């Protein structure tokens, strides 16, 4: 049946349609869906639908021992799991008054930055794929795999490393690991010109990304947008520098910013961040051997660990933005309440709905991927 006949028979004469964008659309992330009302190909209203992934982390954590939760939390964001376990461990340490040995703090920085590089490589690939370019996606996944190899060597796990433990980290770097890390960093550096040629100077990509889904700095602040999306509007703010944790105040790195706040600017900020993470990792390779000492503070028997009553709010910078953990203990062996402020929860619901309204259908995936939303951080 021809389209106009179908319309005439089934709909009142109108140019407005409702379309479900996702959840199983290649241009949308994971289980997420957007219900959009379109007029022609322009979106006039949008509604985010959280879908169904693995929900109930916060409730599950109330039913598990403090130490068991370490294995649970990395699942909150698959592409960038390290910040979850680091932040949770930091919260428990603050409640217990534990001091983390300096070497463990360096090792945590190593893990966090490797995870950030891996997450950004993934995002570039996904973002490029929304414009029909699959080569950067394959490259991104392949290069990320080299980092997963390093994770496997360091922690035993490729994706969920479960490397942290309140008080420090589980194990020290194996022999020759820093050399292999250094080699991988050299390789990543050598790949950047390739990425520039393939993606960042690609006329199709640049034309599509420029001017798409712009956020002004005022809007970004009003909507509590954080991370690379905020820095793409020109505000130089990074939790690592402005509210430092671990040993970030001893490290030398820049905070890349861009002005326009559109999809293009957000991607460029991530590209800059990738370079800065490599720079941080080089400093870790150089300075870690000089930081001697234990990698873990003495902790009580993990299976009978009662954390003193109290509450704390820990926040760190993940690759998606600001990650906050509000942890309450009533002095028992399980957390009383854990609230996760997923970095994506802000820009994946309200900001996304706002940005796609007025955009065209073809730009939805562009906007979604350039915001770098991670759905499980929303439904937790």
């Amino acid at each position: 049946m021809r389209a106009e006949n179908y319309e005439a028979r089934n709909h009142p004469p109108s140019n407005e349609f409702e379309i479900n964008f996702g959840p199983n659309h290649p241009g949308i992330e994971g289980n997420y869906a957007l219900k959009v009302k379109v007029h022609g190909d322009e979106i006039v209203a949008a509604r985010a639908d959280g879908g169904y992934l693995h929900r109930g982390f916060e409730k599950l954590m109330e039913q598990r021992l403090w130490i068991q939760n370490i294995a649970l939390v990395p699942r909150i964001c698959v592409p960038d799991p390290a910040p979850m376990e680091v932040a949770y461990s930091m919260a428990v340490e603050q409640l217990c008054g534990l001091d983390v040995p300096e070497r463990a703090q360096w090792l945590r920085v190593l893990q966090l930055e490797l995870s950030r590089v891996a997450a950004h490589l993934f995002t570039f690939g996904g973002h490029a794929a929304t414009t029909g370019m699959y080569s950067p996606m394959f490259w991104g996944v392949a290069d990320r795999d080299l980092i997963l190899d390093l994770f496997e060597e360091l922690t035993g796990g490729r994706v969920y490393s479960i490397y942290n433990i309140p008080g420090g980290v589980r194990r020290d770097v194996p022999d020759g690991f820093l050399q292999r890390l250094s080699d991988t960093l050299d390789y990543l550096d050598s790949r950047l010109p390739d990425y520039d040629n393939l993606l960042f100077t690609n006329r199709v990509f640049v034309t599509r990304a420029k001017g798409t889904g712009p956020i002004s700095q005022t809007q970004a602040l009003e909507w509590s947008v954080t991370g690379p999306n905020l820095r793409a509007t020109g505000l130089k703010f990074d939790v690592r520098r402005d509210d430092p944790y671990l040993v970030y105040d001893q490290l030398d790195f820049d905070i890349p910013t861009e002005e326009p706040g559109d999809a293009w600017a957000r991607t460029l900020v991530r590209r800059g961040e990738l370079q800065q993470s490599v720079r941080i990792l080089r400093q870790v390779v150089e300075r870690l051997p000089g930081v001697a000492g234990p990698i873990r503070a003495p902790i009580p028997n993990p299976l009978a660990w009662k954390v003193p009553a109290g509450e704390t709010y820990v926040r760190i910078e993940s690759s998606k933005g600001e990650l906050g953990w509000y942890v309450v203990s009533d002095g028992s062996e399980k957390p009383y309440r854990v609230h996760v402020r997923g970095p994506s929860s802000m820009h994946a619901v309200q900001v996304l709905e706002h940005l796609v309204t007025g955009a065209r259908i073809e730009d939805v995936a562009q906007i979604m991927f350039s915001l770098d939303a991670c759905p499980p951080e929303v439904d937790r």
Partner: protein
Amino acid sequence: MSETHLPVERLSIILGEFKDVRVRKRGDRRTRVDVEPDALPALLELLKGRSGFVHLSAISCVDWPDDDQFELVYHLWSYELQLLVSVHTRIARDPGVYVSVYDIYHPAGFFERDIHEMYGVFFEGAPDMEKFILTEWDGPPPMRKEFDSEAWVNDHFDWQNYRPDWLIELEQQGGGIVIPPDEQRFSRRGMQEPDDES
């Protein structure tokens, strides 16, 4: 006066205008403020307007059934003072109604919707109190302390004895899952079945 103390001093001066406000310094960049529920919106407005606490990081809800209260915690960050303030307030658990601060902080819309869904707290004046995740849920708010996930699962779902042919074969060779699902449950070990109680 060291530089890190300065923001807290300034904060104390501003908060001095309020009655019944307790300010506690928690760290170099962390401050806890306890306030009565009536005064909270005005306090947030003051913090945002006068001290640049423009960033609402999160709103957390904690259930205290023994006190018959919900605790709401508003985590605010000031880019200017580089200080994180957690404003705590407690509201009655029944009827569990509070005012929305969406007009002051737009991100509150998401957090309030989340808290409404998970705890059943209703925020008056919030733009959107629709369900987000639990769209097909008809039970009580699941994050409340009295909600027992295991009992809910046992009441609403049947345990399926999953035994395909390949598993039976495997078991005959001495492998597979040999403990039936009922006995796998930790909390059921040593528990009598309801029928046996009489």
